């Protein structure tokens, strides 16, 4: 395993996200944003790893990430997403939602728009735990159980769904352009909160979640309330799960136990998996049906995954146990993650 160098940054990192690269260019991502938490003065920062179009480097880790600019942030950064090339939206433990703009020329950051205290209780602020955006629409969820919809260029709030749940909503993702999936609880003998959710980039009905017990679950949202497959991933809370955006046979998870896992699923046989479905029922763990609506090209290998069947490979991506890995993001061949040990790890040669 190549050595992964840690960059110590004097702040506990709660979120890291790559700046999106345009689909036309084949460039690797070069800028990422981080948010901190648990500081008296929290910050959002932009970093560069200096990948200016040169692919095919043997040396994986040319240099440390360089700090481009940073800005003060009120409260812990609980979630962070890129709205577009220049703007990020962050949610705060004070219940505020803020859009920051990164000015590339002067390497400065300014507050573009702010909605303070949108998530709140009658007498207190409620932390805003998750955000998802599809420009210009932004959806946030919070500990007060509300779902709030904004538009990036409008002052007020578009819509509030109150009491969506009496518990805290931890995470949210888009299912389709008009539907969102929020993430609270799940039952399989024990009641456990789910902390993160991600949708398969190509097949919208497949969703992966991670929860308090560190189990990775893959669901088919069309089919009921038990997960398709269950895999023991980590020994503590799983904070983030991500499908690789262009190569969805790869999945990444990070956890409170200080590890970052890379899951790779593959088909061993020559026959495409959808043909195997009917004959070889033992391969499919929970559901026995091929999806109705015959236009589906493949039953995703995720839906038939079972770690003991040898179709799933897992590798640790960090060299040794660290404090909790709070966040990760993967784009192209680059992976960035941030930990409670105040370190950022960047891996430029993820094998996907």
């Amino acid at each position, binding site marked *: 395993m190549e050595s992964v160098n840690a960059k*110590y940054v*004097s702040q506990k990192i709660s979120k890291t996200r790559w700046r999106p690269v345009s689909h036309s260019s084949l460039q690797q991502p070069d800028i990422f944003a981080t948010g901190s938490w648990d*500081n008296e003065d929290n910050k959002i920062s932009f970093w560069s790893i200096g990948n200016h179009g040169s692919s095919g480097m043997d040396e994986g880790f040319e240099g440390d990430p360089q700090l481009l600019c940073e800005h003060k942030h009120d409260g*812990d950064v609980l979630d962070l997403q890129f709205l577009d090339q220049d703007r990020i939206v962050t949610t705060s433990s004070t219940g505020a939602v803020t859009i920051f703009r990164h000015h590339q020329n002067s390497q400065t950051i300014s507050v573009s728009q702010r909605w303070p205290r949108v998530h709140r*209780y009658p007498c207190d602020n409620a932390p805003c735990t998750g955000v998802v955006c599809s420009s210009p629409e932004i959806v946030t969820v919070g*500990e*007060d159980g509300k779902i709030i919809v904004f538009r990036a260029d409008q002052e007020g709030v578009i819509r509030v769904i109150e009491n969506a*749940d*009496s*518990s805290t909503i931890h995470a949210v993702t888009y299912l389709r352009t008009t539907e969102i999936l929020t993430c609270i609880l799940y039952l399989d003998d024990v009641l456990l909160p789910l902390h993160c959710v991600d949708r398969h980039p190509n097949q919208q009905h497949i969703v992966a979640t991670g929860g308090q017990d560190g189990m990775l679950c893959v669901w088919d949202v069309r089919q009921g309330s038990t997960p398709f497959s269950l895999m023991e991933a980590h020994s503590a809370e799983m904070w983030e799960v991500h499908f690789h955006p262009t190569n969805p046979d790869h999945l990444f998870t990070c956890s409170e136990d200080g590890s970052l896992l890379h899951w790779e699923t593959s088909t061993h046989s020559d026959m495409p998996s959808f043909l195997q479905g009917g004959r070889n029922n033992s391969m499919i763990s929970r559901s026995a049906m091929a999806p109705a609506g015959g236009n589906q090209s493949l039953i995703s290998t995720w839906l038939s995954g079972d770690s003991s069947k040898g179709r799933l490979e897992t590798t640790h991506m960090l060299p040794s146990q660290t404090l909790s890995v709070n966040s990760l993001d993967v784009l192209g061949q680059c992976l960035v993650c941030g930990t409670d040990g105040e370190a950022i790890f960047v891996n430029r040669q993820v094998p996907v």
Partner: protein
Amino acid sequence: MEELDVEPAITNIPAASDGKHLGFAWGPGDILAYETLYMAPGCSFIHEVRKDEDIYSPILRKLFNESHHIFVGLQTIREDLPSKNKKTQFVSISKNYRSVIRACMEELQQVLQKWPRNMEIRYVSILLAIELIWNLCEVLFIDAAPAGPLLLHLLDWVRLHKGDVDEKAREVLQSESPAEHHDYWDVPGGTQTLTEFDVKWRHWHEEVDRCLQDNSFASNQHLEIICKILVGDEDTLLEHKELLSTWYHFLVTRLLFCHPTVKPTELHYYAQSCMTMFLDLRSVPEPLDSILLAAFEFDIHQVIKDCSIALNNWWFVAHLTDLLDHCKLLQSHNLHFGSNLREFLLLEYASGLFTHHSLWQLAVDYFDNCPEFGHVYLELQIERVPLDTERKALKVLRICEQRQMSEQVRSICKIMAMRALRNNRLGSALSWSIRAKDAAFATLISERFLQDYCARGTFSDLDLIDNLGPAMLLSDRLTFLVKYREFHKLYEENRFSEAAKLLLSLITAKIAPRSFWMTLLTDALPLLEQKEVSHSAHCPYLLLYHLTCLVYGFIVFCYGSSCKVDQLLTSLIKESVCRFAGLGPEGLGTPKV
């Protein structure tokens, strides 16, 4: 109580006005000082006096985080490795620590280049001193080089810290040296034994001495000076004091030219004399000098003690002592407070970390590695971590659960549950009490749910209640809540006989709170009218029987028992039963209640 070694330090509180009385209270790492009203009416400020500002420096934070990583790695070195392998590992760990210090220094210097008046300038000299001391300790204690290689290591040590000066000296020397001198630099450790080298060196030394006596270099003054230096003539060396900026540089130089095969045990003689010779103008040696001298005397405890006093922060002594303890170099002697030196220092350091709003997470690992008191300290400190968001609470909980600190788990869950309850987030409160396995609180919350139901006629938070699973057995009230909700669900789905059975079991199990009896009765009545229920042979009569008991008990509870009530009640029941069974009023005897 031991006497104080030094005078206690005085800290001025700038904001407090002159002549006012100050009261104070100890905190875990800080002191709160306040002005009192003893003399004249004063203003009511509270001042927070921080003992240790170093942990708030952003650059030093990297030191703390990186060294934490090394510390955790060190604790996992297996005890059963052969000692030679362990020594190499310890030396490499020591070098790791030092490289972290150097990285910090470099970064500080970069920052100071950009902003020369930055407050952090004071750390440069501290870090330099720390690295110097650590390096010397590594050479003398951890690497423990024998005579011969010892001098080489000391040379490296001095060179590292006085790089440019030595460069110059080396140039001068090498430009003049004949071939023999090249042999000289092939110092022991290579192919020769110590005695072989010693003999050769003495031979060479005598020759140079003779050359000097013969005045063969009298013509060239510079050459003569160089020769005198090579011979180790103290006066010449002292004349060039400005090249040797410190007494320990002087020491190593003198050893190099006079006693290259010095044994570790002889070091302190030379150290003492060199220091005296070098510092003859200054009266009192600085703290750094006495620390280094103690190191040359191999008095580890004195080194640690002096460093503890001289430095503001426990980082250095804690990590160094821990490493030395792993090398089995510390004699274990108990301190007055019961734990050994290593544990005491680690506890102090970690307690200091815990007062920091962010670095408390590092402290947990340090407490874990203090076998005697670490657990207790952790228990006391972890409850003070402020819990602003659920995510932070989950992290703290995970720490407590992994260490079986059930008291703290319960306490944290209760704090979060109360907060949720105050904000009317009943589902959240319930999940927290389930996590803590807190039956009493779960009962309280279930009551709130039921009250809500009575007030509004519907349930809130159905998804949570419907999916509790075996967690519902935590408390009777909670079980009732879940089952009652199930009853409603069955009723809505028109599964009446199942609903009736469930209601029956609810009543017979006697887990319904008294306040709910009326509600249960009201729920039962429409059931009895359902065809499905009334036509099933067994159920309705049982139901009726139990309902009757319920009603009777309820009325007695409300109105007390009396003959008149009895009569009234009996006739009421008779009438309704008959109506139900489709019989006339005389068709039924008195039911036994």
